[in-house]
């Protein structure tokens, strides 16, 4: 005999259990979308996948990596994909991260769209090349008090093809108080010719999850996974004068672009690189660029210090990078020749530089930038 007192709990458990079973069975029936077809870029690639998950994770399972800085939480708005099949109105989680034009053009956040039926989607061609790499940390070098140069050796796959200026997503594992894996984007500092490894410049951001991890925990020999290559910032093949502007770790994509030109022997283009820093302590790769200036007559390296210390014995340009850029554009750089701006840095610095470039008739479509 069951003790009387147990009849109540047992009955409740049995009722609850039966209802839970019913829900599970319904879930199997209702959430089973079977096999669905994903048509990418109008028949360029047709995938048969099992429905029910988000578009972002479904594509990731098929080794197509849509960039996603927040890891599918619907907060960063980078995983945009055009869905041409009608899948109903945009969700309330999507609209704040899309422009009115994008909503009209059926751009969706792939992390918020569930694959429930056959879908036709449009994604940039470049995304097909994106891979997830297993890597080993080859070297970590201090360049300044808060910038480290990090090289990752590629283990699997062992080679990468990218365009100078693109970036990679670091997958930072959970550590300490951080309970979830985090993804952060860093531009490649190494050149595309260096196929077996990727180099980065990583500045310590106080409180930053990924930069703190790289600066305090990552050691040579550690394993790290990255997703690469991503991004539209790159060299545009024209004859225009290149005006490159970046300070601090923003140098990475420009370093890659400039040395890519050197490696490929494209030395007929005029390149001006403006590097802004506060004092000499924040200057790095200085000798490397000065040497390059000697070898390559069309390359000009302008380092400007805004607050040089007395000990610096600084003989170069002094002032904010915008003022230095302005004075060079007035006096030293051929005024009537077509120019392209390549900028990398904080939004404030980029906006200020764009104003200077526009004042010197460099048009919007010739200004390329990577804000971070």
């Amino acid at each position, binding site marked *: 005999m069951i003790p009387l007192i147990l*009849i109540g709990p047992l009955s409740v458990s049995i009722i609850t259990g039966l*209802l839970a079973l019913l829900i599970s069975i319904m879930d199997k029936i209702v959430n089973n979308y079977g096999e669905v077809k994903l048509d990418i870029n109008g028949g360029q690639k047709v995938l048969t996948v099992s429905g029910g998950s988000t578009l972002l994770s479904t594509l990731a399972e098929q080794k197509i990596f849509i960039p996603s800085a927040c890891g599918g939480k619907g907060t960063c708005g980078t995983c945009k994909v055009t869905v041409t099949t009608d899948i109903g109105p945009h969700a309330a989680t999507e609209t704040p991260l899309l422009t009115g034009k994008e909503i009209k053009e059926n751009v969706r956040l792939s992390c918020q769209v569930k694959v*429930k039926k056959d879908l036709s989607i449009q994604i940039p061609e470049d995304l097909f090349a994106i891979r997830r790499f297993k890597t080993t940390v080859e070297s970590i070098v201090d360049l300044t008090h808060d910038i480290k140069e990090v090289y990752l050796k590629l283990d699997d796959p062992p080679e990468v093809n990218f365009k100078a200026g693109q970036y990679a997503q670091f997958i930072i594992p959970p550590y300490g108080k951080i309970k979830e894996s985090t993804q952060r984007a860093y531009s490649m500092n190494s050149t595309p010719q260096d196929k077996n490894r990727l180099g980065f410049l990583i500045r310590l951001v106080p409180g930053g999850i990924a930069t703190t991890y790289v600066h305090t925990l990552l050691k040579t020999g550690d394993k790290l996974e990255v997703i690469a290559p991503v991004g539209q910032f790159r060299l545009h093949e024209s004859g225009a004068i290149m005006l490159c502007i970046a300070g601090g770790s923003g140098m990475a994509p420009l370093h890659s672009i400039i040395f890519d030109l050197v490696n490929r022997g494209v030395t007929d283009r005029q390149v001006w690189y403006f590097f802004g820093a506060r004092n000499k302590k924040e200057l790095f790769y200085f000798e490397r660029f000065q040497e390059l200036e000697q070898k390559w007559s069309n390359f000009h390296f302008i380092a400007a210090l805004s607050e040089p210390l007395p000990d610096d014995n600084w003989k170069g340009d002094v002032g904010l990078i915008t003022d230095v850029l302005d004075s060079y554009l007035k006096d030293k750089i051929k005024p009537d020749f077509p120019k392209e701006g390549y900028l990398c840095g904080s939004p404030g610095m980029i906006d200020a530089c764009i104003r200077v470039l526009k004042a010197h008739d460099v048009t919007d479509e010739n200004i390329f930038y990577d804000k971070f």
Partner: protein
Amino acid sequence: MTPDINPIVLFFASVFTSNILLANFLGMCSFIAISKDFKSANGLGLAVIIVLLITSVLNWAVYHLILVPLNLEYLRFIVFIIVIAASVQILEMVIDRISPALYMTLGIFLPLITVNCAILGVVLLLQIRNYSFVQSAVFGLGSGIGWWIAIISLAAIRKKLEKAPIPAGLKGPGITFITIGLMAMAFMGFSGILSVQ
């Protein structure tokens, strides 16, 4: 003792004279929150009808076929709530499948039906009043339809109110509460016709 009420009378009574919202004031929060938009009000109203019908029938069966024979009437709250939660969970999955658009517009209010007091209220009323199976089904359906009529009426009125010259201090919730009060008074006009206890 099962009260001797004709199910048809009970149906009309639960829709009009003892309207769950406007006569008993149960299920107010989603009534006010979702009535801003007619389409979602209609969707939520229909969802409430289905949940009320299902949970009335299921809970009647659970109460009379399991709890009463086992002398476990005192467990009714926990059991009723579990049955309601499971029904809502299943309904949520079905709506997501059939109409993603409705699923999106209902958003958080769909799972919130679980704790909508109109639902538990109806289930407890039919247990307290000792309704028969048919009476319970009819009372559940009628209360659901009553709730639906109340929310779409309010949604329609609020649509008109958008263009009305309302004093600044009364805009939004203020005028909505006054409107609901007037609606409740209008529904009280039905009260002499049928009386159901």
